[in-house]
């Protein structure tokens, strides 16, 4: 009897996790992109009491790092539980030491890996095989999946094979391309999975577990006499594994009818040219081979599934005997090697075979290797064709690259971009939207509807940009009667939906739309007016391509139906109406059904609003007829200003414009070094509304400047004489504190860089006495202000900066006259982290060196195309680097060590050259204090003078000194990162640095979750908060990192919340930097992951402190010298109930909706915790230190 299985439309991560969860008892994970969803899904299933195939709920635990996760996996395996984990990239690398152990002990397990690039010249979250290729030596078997269905199937095969072979498995699939591709697949049911796993293999596994009733010793230390022999004992297990895997594949075929082999060949049986490939690219290669076969080319591809243990026997039996030329494609790079790993294996396997007695081929085939698809670089049919074309050459290019233009070492093959072989029977649709408008969510729903409610095959893939504010998304949907093997972005589409009118300017949205295709536009203009508002390039394209054109004012429909800015349902309805994929009534019924599924649990009201939106849509959707006349003759603006530096104009602008794929190798920096001060050229214009300064109300407190997360609002005090050429609309007022009226004061907004977050308006304390809603800063529509404010900003930026040496830097208002050297980041609108980062750049930017842990701050700080880290007019500014997630404290300490060493060496050299440069002059430089801005300025001047003297010297020591001269000016080392780094993965290193006594400053941007990877709990997560892996509310209190740091006694520690006290924050930053030793500042950073209105972030900070949840204090060990207690509490304990704070935030509030009883219990505990923390800190702060100094002196005597 044929078994009926569900057809489901899911992504690769879910496909893997579904099987892994069902066949595991323990799951230990650590979040890392793109594998995080597998762990999150498992956690969600466990929290809903989802059972595995044996009827019990797997235990899912989040660890502090991948090193921790794999340790827990090893332990769980040794103690007898079927255990799995999910990871990628650097995470997999952190697992390597334990992987040797697990394999060495012949322990069955499957690690599901979303294959991802390794950070080299830069970090990349995207997919290639760099990570998995680094574990091929560990003893793990390695099995690859090429599509979402294969991920689901191979996961089951791997779980079976590992138990039978005792060899642990890496099951890998391509990050993003497969892990995040949504595809319609057939779901394996519990009986399939049960049938796959032989229970005896589980019993045997359990028998081998550590058990005091049958004690054993594992993990011995062995000596030269026996280690080698011990290492060779495992050979027979590896020898047996390929057959075991093949048997598992055969068994799977019996169950499901889907056939897999260790190597699968596809193509002409007598092919002469074969491409060998592994991973999602194989699907595209197969699709291309189909096309080439129709043209009677004798070609084929060989897909490698089991990469380790490598079975030459199976390889040779699968390759056609006729093959003459082979191209092996590797999705990784090993600089300096003869070739990449798969290529080397194939060469070795075939060479070995050809040098044996039974030669498998008449003649040794020509084997070449090439690299493709690094960091999810597109791999298209035209590239596959180019590889086959290369094989046609008499001397094919070896060690080639495909997909890029290598104009330096000329490795790349040319490919024809116009070679497009999209399935003409399939429907292809592309959607351009904003992250915030719900486009992707709606498209995921659409593809689910099409996949699960029609007979069609369906695929969805979603491309996001690298900004967190104003980010755009492009959705790629394919569906049709044939299985979909196109593992690349849509090249020729039938339908384009543009969900935001302004995207017509920034994207070439019609580039891929075929002639006669359909274009749906969300337009604020009516059907009569819209044509004249379309950019010229769009009009031209539409006329040329003879497109069908539909418009809807989705914003209006959404607004009228109470949907606010969420236009997703409206646009989704339009898509179904126009595409005709389902009959109209059925489509609407399905959309409503999907709305019910998506929103139902959040309340009927939201369901009803969405229904209303659906019902109102069709009446507002219009087809627009247009003529052949181009009516818009305005030329498009350049992507960046003509004033931008060449590198920005030539290279970064291409990345900004979405044309980064066309940048040749020669234009890329060779070592990952990029210029700073580039964000200012982007001018993203993402805010609909921007702040406008009302000078007559302003009290010059500069709170708006301090709060602005994007440095888009600035203050300056300057001589009135500078105003001579001011633009007409430039605003100013008398600067406070200058009785002679000689100075003017201006607040200037960078309207093109502002994200419109509203935080500045919220913090502005000045209200109009006649109309209190009007403040000194108010929001107004951006468009009418754009041109004038651009000119005003240019004028403002050209005004001289206020003299740093005259500023009291520990005063909030004055500190904000310092130029920010961190500007216009792509962080979320209203980000709670960036005001602190910006403050560091203002206070110490011209001498700042930053070690930045991976996370949000490394993304908004260093993700291409541009960086917010900037330079002042002298060219000084922060220099920045990101090493890894786990090692940032050590990375920063290393910087300090180098600076100390080099500045010491410079002083030594200067002492040796004192006769040449002047003894007194040299001595002054060597011993100059550099505590104040003035002292630093003088030192800079002296060093500049010294430089002039040395440049004319013939003394060899002078040249030596010149190379380290800059170190004579003090540098400020800041180690920055989030709580995931400081509390969890980097804590060991952080702790070591805290204990080092070195002069480094640590800034912990504490959002209390892993914000960058989507809100997983960290040890900074508060008691009662909901986060991923704490779905039922965290039951343990937040780690008191400050107290741990204080325990060293000689570490400066401050806990700050700018929203509660900006004065305390500024003082803490100044003191921390001044402190000669380790300083750590833990900064409350409100975050989008808290589920709050971001413009109210500072209000939330206030509540956090007032409830006693977030103690504010400074702990300055220097105070002890003066007989004072080092701890100064700057909060008054719990003044309001904790619930007045936490229930303003979704992360806490949601628990009252999902589990009110537990919410109440945890809230009570949180209240108690706040009270206890207050007691404990109060006690510490009350200690009498008046004799401490004397006692210390006595001890020293």
């Amino acid at each position, binding site marked *: 009897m044929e078994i009926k299985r569900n057809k489901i439309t899911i992504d690769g991560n879910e496909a893997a996790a579904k099987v892994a969860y069902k066949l595991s008892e323990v799951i230990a994970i650590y979040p890392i992109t793109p594998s995080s969803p597998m762990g999150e899904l498992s956690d969600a299933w466990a929290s809903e009491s989802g059972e595995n195939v044996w009827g019990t709920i797997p235990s899912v635990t989040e660890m502090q790092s991948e090193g921790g996760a794999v340790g827990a996996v090893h332990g769980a395996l040794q103690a007898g539980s079927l255990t799995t984990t999910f990871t990628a990239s650097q995470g997999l690398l952190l697992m390597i030491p334990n992987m040797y152990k697990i394999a060495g002990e012949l322990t069955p397990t499957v690690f599901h890996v979303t294959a991802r690039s390794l950070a080299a010249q830069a970090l990349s979250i995207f997919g290639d095989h760099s990570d998995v290729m680094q574990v091929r030596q560990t003893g793990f078997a390695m099995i690859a999946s090429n599509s979402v269905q294969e991920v689901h199937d191979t996961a089951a095969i791997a779980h079976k094979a590992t138990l039978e072979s005792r060899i642990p498995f890496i099951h890998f699939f391509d990050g993003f391309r497969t892990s995040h591709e949504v595809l319609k697949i057939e779901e394996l049911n519990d009986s399939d999975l049960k049938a796959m796993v032989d229970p005896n293999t589980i019993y045997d596994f359990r028998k081998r577990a550590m058990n005091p009733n049958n004690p054993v010793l594992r993990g011995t230390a062995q000596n030269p006499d026996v280690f080698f022999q011990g290492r060779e004992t495992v050979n027979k297990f590896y020898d047996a594994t390929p057959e075991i895997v093949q048997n598992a594949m055969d068994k799977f075929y019996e169950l499901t009818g889907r056939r897999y082999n260790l190597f699968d060949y596809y193509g002409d049986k007598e092919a002469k040219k074969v491409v060998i490939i592994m991973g999602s690219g194989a699907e595209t290669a197969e699709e291309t081979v189909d096309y080439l076969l129709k043209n009677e080319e004798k070609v084929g591809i060989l897909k490698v599934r089991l990469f380790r243990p490598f079975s030459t026997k199976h390889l040779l039996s699968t390759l056609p005997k006729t093959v003459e030329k082979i191209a092996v494609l590797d999705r990784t790079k090993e600089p300096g090697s003869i070739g990449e790993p798969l290529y080397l294996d194939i060469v070795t396997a075939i060479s070995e075979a050809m040098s044996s007695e039974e030669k498998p081929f008449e003649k040794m085939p020509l084997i070449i290797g090439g690299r493709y698809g690094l960091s999810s670089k597109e791999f298209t049919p035209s590239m596959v064709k180019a590889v086959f074309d290369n094989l046609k050459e008499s001397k094919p290019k070896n060690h080639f690259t495909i997909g890029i233009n290598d104009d330096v070492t000329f490795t790349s093959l040319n490919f024809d971009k116009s070679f497009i072989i999209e399935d003409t029977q399939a429907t292809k649709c592309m959607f351009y939207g904003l992250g915030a408008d719900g486009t992707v969510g709606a498209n995921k729903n659409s593809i689910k509807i099409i996949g699960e409610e029609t007979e069609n095959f369906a695929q969805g893939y979603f491309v996001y940009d690298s900004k967190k504010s104003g980010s755009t998304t492009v959705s790629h949907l394919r569906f049709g009667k044939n299985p979909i093997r196109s593992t690349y972005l849509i090249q020729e589409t039938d339908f384009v939906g543009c969900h935001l009118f302004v995207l017509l300017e920034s994207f070439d949205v019609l580039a891929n739309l075929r002639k006669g295709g359909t274009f749906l536009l969300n337009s604020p203009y009516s059907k009569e007016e819209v044509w004249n508002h379309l950019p010229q390039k769009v009009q031209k394209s539409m006329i040329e391509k003879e497109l069908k054109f539909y418009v809807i004012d989705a914003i209006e429909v959404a607004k009228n139906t109470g949907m606010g800015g969420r236009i997703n349902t409206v646009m989704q309805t339009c898509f179904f109406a126009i595409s005709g994929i389902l009959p109209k009534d059925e489509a609407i019924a399905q959309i409503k059904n999907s709305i019910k599924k998506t929103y139902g*649990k*959040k309340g009927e*009201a939201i369901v009803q609003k969405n229904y209303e939106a659906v019902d109102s849509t069709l009446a507002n959707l219009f087809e627009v007829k247009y003529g052949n006349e181009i009516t818009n003759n305005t030329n498009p603006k350049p992507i960046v200003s003509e004033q931008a530096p060449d590198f920005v104009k030539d290279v970064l602008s291409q990345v900004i414009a979405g044309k980064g794929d066309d940048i040749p190798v020669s234009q890329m920096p060779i070592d990952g070094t990029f210029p700073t001060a580039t964000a200012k050229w982007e001018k993203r214009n993402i805010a609909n509304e921007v702040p406008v300064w009302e000078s007559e109300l302003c009290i010059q407190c500069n709170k708006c400047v301090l709060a602005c997360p994007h440095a888009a609002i600035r203050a300056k005090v300057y001589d009135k004489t500078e105003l001579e050429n001011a633009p007409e609309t430039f605003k100013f007022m008398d600067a406070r504190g200058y009785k002679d009226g000689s100075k003017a004061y201006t607040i200037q907004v960078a309207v093109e860089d502002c994200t419109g977050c509203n935080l500045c308006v919220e913090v502005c304390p000045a209200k109009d006495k006649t109309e209190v809603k009007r403040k000194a800063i108010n929001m107004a529509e951006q468009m009418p202000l754009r041109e004038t404010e651009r000119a005003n900003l240019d004028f403002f930026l050209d005004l001289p900066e206020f003299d740093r040496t005259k500023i009291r830097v520990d005063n909030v208002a004055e500190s904000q006259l310092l130029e920010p050297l961190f500007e216009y980041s792509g962080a979320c609108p209203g980000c709670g982290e960036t005001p602190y980062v910006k403050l560091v750049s203002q206070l110490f930017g011209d001498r700042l060196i930053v070690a930045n842990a991976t996370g949000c701050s490394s993304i908004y700080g260093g993700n291409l195309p541009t960086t917010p880290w900037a330079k002042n007019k002298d060219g000084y500014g922060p220099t920045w680097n990101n090493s890894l997630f786990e090692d940032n404290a050590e990375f920063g300490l290393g910087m300090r060590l180098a600076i100390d060493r080099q500045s010491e060496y410079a002083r030594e050299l200067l002492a040796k050259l004192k006769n040449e440069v002047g003894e007194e002059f040299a001595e002054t430089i060597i011993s100059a204090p550099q505590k104040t801005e003035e002292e630093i300025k003088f030192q800079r001047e002296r060093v500049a003078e010294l430089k002039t003297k040395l440049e004319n010297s013939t003394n060899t020591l002078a040249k030596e000194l010149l190379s380290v001269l800059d170190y004579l000016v003090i540098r400020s080392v800041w180690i920055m990162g989030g709580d995931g780094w400081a509390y969890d993965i980097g804590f060991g290193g952080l702790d070591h640095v805290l204990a080092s006594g070195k002069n480094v400053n640590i800034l912990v941007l504490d959002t209390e979750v892993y914000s960058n990877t989507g809100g997983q709990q960290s040890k900074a997560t508060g008691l009662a908060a909901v986060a991923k892996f704490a779905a039922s509310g965290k039951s343990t209190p937040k780690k008191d990192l400050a107290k741990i740091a204080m325990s060293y006694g000689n570490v400066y520690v401050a806990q700050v919340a700018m929203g509660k006290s900006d004065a305390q924050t500024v003082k803490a930053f100044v003191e921390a930097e001044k402190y000669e030793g380790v300083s750590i500042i833990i900064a409350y950073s409100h975050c989008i992951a808290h589920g709050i209105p971001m413009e109210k972030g500072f209000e939330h900070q206030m509540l956090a402190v007032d409830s006693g949840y977030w103690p504010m204090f400074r702990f300055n060990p220097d105070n002890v010298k003066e007989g004072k207690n080092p701890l100064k509490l700057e909060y008054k304990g719990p003044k309001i109930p904790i619930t007045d704070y936490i229930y303003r935030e979704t992360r806490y509030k949601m628990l009252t909706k999902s589990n009110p009883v537990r919410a109440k219990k945890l809230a009570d505990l949180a209240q108690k915790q706040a009270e206890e923390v207050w007691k404990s800190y109060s006690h510490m702060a009350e200690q009498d230190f008046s004799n401490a100094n004397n006692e210390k002196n006595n001890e020293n005597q």
Partner: protein
Amino acid sequence: MELKTNYLGLELKNPIVPSASPLSENISTAKALEDSGASAIVVYSLFEEQLSHESGELDHYLSLGAESYSEATSYFPEHDEYKMGPFEYLDHIANLKNSLEIPIIGSLNGVSKGGWVDYAKNIQDAGADALELNIYYVPTNPNVTSFQIEEMYIETVKAITSKVTIPVAVKLSPFFSSMANMAIRLEEAGAKGLVLFNRFYQPDFDLEKLKVVPNLQLSSNWEMRLPLRWLAILHGQVNLSLAATSGIQTHIDVIKTMMAGGNVAMLASELLKKGPNRISEILNDLQNWMVENEYSSIKQMQGSMSQKSVADPAAFERANYMKTLQSYSL
């Protein structure tokens, strides 16, 4: 001593009923109220806004920033189920019903005829013995006439009473041009009782922040004069159960309420201040007073000092106003 009274057709063991307040938010406090002698309990209100906005808010913040950035396609774990406003409330009604012996009166607070009125039926299905409809409306639109507002009240009551078979009481504000006429029209619209009156929580000003701030003040004793007057006026003119709320603190206040014509006296502020046990104290005092003053039942005193039963009906009208002013003359 007979303390029984009838309210909305429900036979109650005495006239003391805790009105809609946070006191009914947890079962143990509600149980304590019952143990102390409460004869019924009005559950805290389910707000129209709660129904329409809360789910929107939850959806908004749970999806804020989602599907925008490749590393974080969401920021929160998916929960299988959320007990949103109505469900949470309906569960609570059912739990109260299971835990308490006394009648449970559900409370709906809203102003429009929107989908929220359907929840009246849900409240009935959850086990409520009666429903209090709290119409809290501040007419700020100068284009809306008093007639339109009155019609809105009537339509809302009609919409609700058509959905349920349990009795519905209407809690309304004192700001009607013709309260007595309004009472009759509400009766015609299907109401079985009136609760006098809704206290409009007046916002306060924070002069430091120049902000309008909510400021909840518990009721004071003098506030019961207004309902007292209207109980006295309406008693006998309408065939409705009447409840007084606002400022009732002692057995004397309860007695006055009864004498004016009330069927029950509702308390919240007094219980919030002094705890659930306060009911038993008031009941004791009430019985003692009745003994001392030789009253044998509550029914005996109900309406005994209503407008139609007093010697000087004008005391409730303009004449009384003149007397009041004179009493303040220096």
